[in-house]
């Protein structure tokens, strides 16, 4: 049987959520690349074109979910990589809070950006 190489503790909650978000991201990241590089092209990007896409509630919701899952998957991956390298105790807790704060900032800024395109003014 093959060896198991992973930064995650097998069967743990962080491992499970990493897999659940991965299954979603595999499809949505491929869709994102396809839509924004092959259907629409890099040299055609404009605020108005992004606005038209974000006006569609389904697309807007998908992008918000994409932002949240990608942030979780990325930050959870970084955290587990560091834990796998031997991060423990107070430093582990400090890294965790820094990563949680960075994630919250990223999601808030991402939502503000999506709202700017969609014409929603919440904050």
């Amino acid at each position, binding site marked *: *049987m093959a060896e198991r190489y992973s930064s995650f503790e097998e069967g743990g909650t962080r491992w499970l959520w990493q897999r659940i978000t991965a299954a979603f991201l595999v499809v949505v990241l491929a869709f994102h690349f396809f839509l924004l590089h092959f259907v629409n092209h890099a040299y055609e990007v404009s605020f108005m074109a992004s606005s038209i896409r974000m006006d569609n509630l389904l697309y807007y919701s998908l992008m918000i979910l994409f932002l949240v899952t990608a942030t979780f998957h990325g930050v959870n991956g*970084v955290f587990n990589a560091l834990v796998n390298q031997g991060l423990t105790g107070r430093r582990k807790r400090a890294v965790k809070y820094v990563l949680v704060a960075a994630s919250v900032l990223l999601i808030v800024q991402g939502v503000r950006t999506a709202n700017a395109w969609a014409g929603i003014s919440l904050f």
Partner: protein
Amino acid sequence: MSQSYDRGLVEDFGRWKEFSAGMWAWVFHKFTGWVLVGYLFTHISVLSTAVSAAGNTRAIEAQNDVYTVVISTLESLLVVRILEVGLLAVAVFHILNGCRLLLVDLGVGLDAQDKSFYASLVLTGAIVVASVPTFLEGVF
């Protein structure tokens, strides 16, 4: 049946000559993951220029708002387009190897996990090479 192995530290890259397909897959997945999470933060930062552009209807209609200008300036640079091809390579490998990991975790295709790693590499190369014309379109 599960077995435990003393794989030593994969993080000890001085042992790279001893690395097997599974270890290379682990190294590449981790590397591409770090690149993607770094890019995610950069991506949202650059796209955030849309927040400043919003509300300036006249500039948006004339396509000279800050967001459109920043993105179109970046996209006019050959180096940015080449970096985008690199990003595609990183993302495609992470997606394909991620599918491989999902299958491995479900216990599917364990015996062929080395072959599926090579297949991920070959498929990544093929998709990236085929995408180069689209990614460079309009830059010259």
